[in-house]
């Protein structure tokens, strides 16, 4: 018999309690893993997109951490493009929009509609699944992401609504409706996949931002691929720009990773995921503490015998901590399955599936597993301490 078999047999002694404890922990751990995954996937997809689009700087209005409420004049784009250190710029307009059907609002939650120029960096890693991309001269055309296309397809079962190439979509509040769907795309960025792209000028009108942009990306001419000196120079020059017509508007130029860290929506997701994780961890520790304390109490006499036959305190501690760690490890496994299933379920909900990628990366799973094992150690520490403190003679007499 191995020591670990002994530990597992102890857990099998009260199978219902063990299963319920594991399930309780697994639900908490599952929610923690799912939220960590959502947060991680969003950040990773945005960072990966900037990386594949070879973006060196992201320029947004200062003091507008929400991202899409950033708004400034195209003057900044033009002046930046003139800088000798700048290779290219790519501006965009981003906003939330709603779709209507027969004059009635279709509730899709948050629907991001971007306005892109034909040379937008984003086209470089956009995969056209059906139809075509937007071309120069296109007006009142729209490309929809594959997730949005699926959501609209589901809605079309209730009543007619455009979801295929050649169909039309009507955006609420836009006087120049409807828009013809010319293509369905797949983007590496989750929220792009759940949204739509219209020509830049149409986007400006749709979001009532004529002559404005939400932000723009910059590719810098660099002496070496990883040289940051030129990037820093361009950053300073962009941030020094002032629009003569509106000198109070200030922009910030951040590297993509810094930008991702500063976007308040992502910060919010991160904060919520950590908050829920902390709550889940605390609940898990208390649950495990309860189970293991009960288990030690029930086995007081037995622990006395183990001490009597020569087990030192440290082996008793290892036994109790081992049991707690096994419970936690089982909870981590079941929790991972729960997280995966939960995320799969969320991706079927149109209101949120534009922001969720049902992908559990090894990094997230490892982090969830590590946190859960930590729960096991913390939750088992006090019962182990209690068990180790038992005097053999008193423990054996315990009734």
């Amino acid at each position, binding site marked *: *018999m*191995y*020591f670990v*078999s*002994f530990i597992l*047999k*102890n857990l*099998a*002694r009260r199978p219902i309690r063990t299963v319920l404890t594991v399930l309780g922990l697994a639900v908490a751990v599952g929610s923690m893993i799912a939220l960590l995954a959502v947060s991680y996937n969003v950040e990773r997809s945005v960072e990966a997109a900037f990386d594949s689009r070879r973006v060196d700087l992201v320029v947004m209005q200062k003091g507008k951490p929400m991202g899409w409420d950033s708004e400034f004049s195209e003057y900044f784009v033009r002046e930046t493009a003139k800088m000798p250190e700048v290779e290219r710029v790519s501006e965009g307009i981003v906003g939330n929009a709603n779709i209507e059907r027969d004059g009635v609002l279709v509730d899709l939650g948050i629907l991001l509609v971007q306005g892109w120029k034909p040379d937008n960096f984003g086209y470089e890693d956009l995969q056209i699944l059906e139809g075509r991309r937007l071309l120069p001269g296109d007006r009142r055309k729209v490309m929809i992401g594959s997730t949005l296309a699926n959501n609209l397809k589901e809605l079309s079962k209730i009543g007619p609504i455009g979801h295929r190439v050649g169909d039309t979509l009507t955006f609420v509040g836009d006087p120049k409706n409807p828009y013809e769907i010319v293509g369905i795309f797949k983007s590496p960025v989750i929220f792009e996949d759940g949204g739509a792209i219209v020509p830049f000028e149409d986007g400006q009108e749709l979001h009532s931002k004529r002559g404005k942009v939400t932000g723009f990306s910059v590719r810098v001419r660099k002496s070496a691929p990883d040289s940051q000196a030129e990037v820093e120079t361009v950053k300073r020059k962009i941030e020094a720009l002032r629009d003569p017509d509106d000198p109070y508007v200030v922009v910030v130029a951040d590297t993509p990773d810094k930008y991702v860290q500063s976007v308040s929506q992502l910060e919010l997701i991160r904060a919520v995921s950590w908050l829920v994780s902390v709550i889940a961890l605390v609940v898990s520790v208390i649950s495990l503490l309860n189970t293991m304390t009960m288990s030690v109490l029930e086995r007081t*006499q*037995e622990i006395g*015998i*183990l*001490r*009597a*036959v*020569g*087990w*030192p*305190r440290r*082996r008793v501690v290892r036994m109790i901590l081992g049991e707690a760690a096994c419970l936690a490890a089982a909870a981590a496994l079941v929790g991972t399955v729960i997280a995966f299933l939960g995320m799969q379920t969320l991706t079927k909900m149109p209101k949120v599936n534009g922001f969720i990628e049902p992908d559990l990366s090894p990094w997230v799973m490892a982090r969830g597993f590590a946190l859960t094992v930590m729960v096991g150690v913390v939750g088992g520490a006090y019962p182990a301490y209690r068990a180790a403190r038992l*005097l*053999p*003679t008193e423990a*054996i007499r315990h009734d």
Partner: protein
Amino acid sequence: MTDNRNYLGHRNGIPAGRRGECGDYLLYADRLYKTYPDGEVRALNGVSLGVHQGEYVAITGPSGCGKSTLLNMLGVLDVPDNGEIYFRGQPLTTRRDLDNFRARQIGFVFQSFFLIPTLTARENVQVPMFEGPRLSARERAKKADDLLALVGMSQRAHHRPMKLSVGERQRVAIARALANDPVLLLADEPTGNLDSENADKVLDLFTALQKDRNLALIVVTHSDEVAERADRVVKMRDGRVVADSGADIIPTSDSAATS
């Protein structure tokens, strides 16, 4: 002048003044005192006792006379308030590795067997081996099989305690006590929960083990039958040894110590 001395400070074996008394005992308890904090009664009141290797000693006496307390002290499950226990001439209470000492030198048998219910007989026997001489899992299993064969339980090796009769449980408990080849076996009312037939079997087994393995056997009992089988009977009353059938009786307590 009281002889109520505390020898806890003696790290280099038996104090010079006591060497003659300790003789060649395997285990020597030197004037043990114990008062439990929850009561005024002294459980042990200056008890001295020497046990030779291969000797079978029965400790008898009325309930509450300190038999089990003495057994716990001899098995270093508990430490005396005063006094010292010597094993092969070396003091025990100051040792830091008492667990290790217990694992390797002492086997315990209890009235209520105390087998672990989730483990089979074979697995129960292996429990002490985690702390004995280093053995592989295969070696532990093999040794457990051998010990179960020794106590006549081979056929029931894969049964859990609930599936065993009380007599069988006690035999498994004896096999467990022998797991690390101890030189000293301590038994607290080992036949207390057994019918006469099973009690006889257990006592036969004790006798055989004592002879074959040269085990020192100390049994606490109320049973005259158990006491009759012993080489030596020690009677206790009120925390003192009041009679010892052994030839080399050690004074139980000084008159001064009782004052």
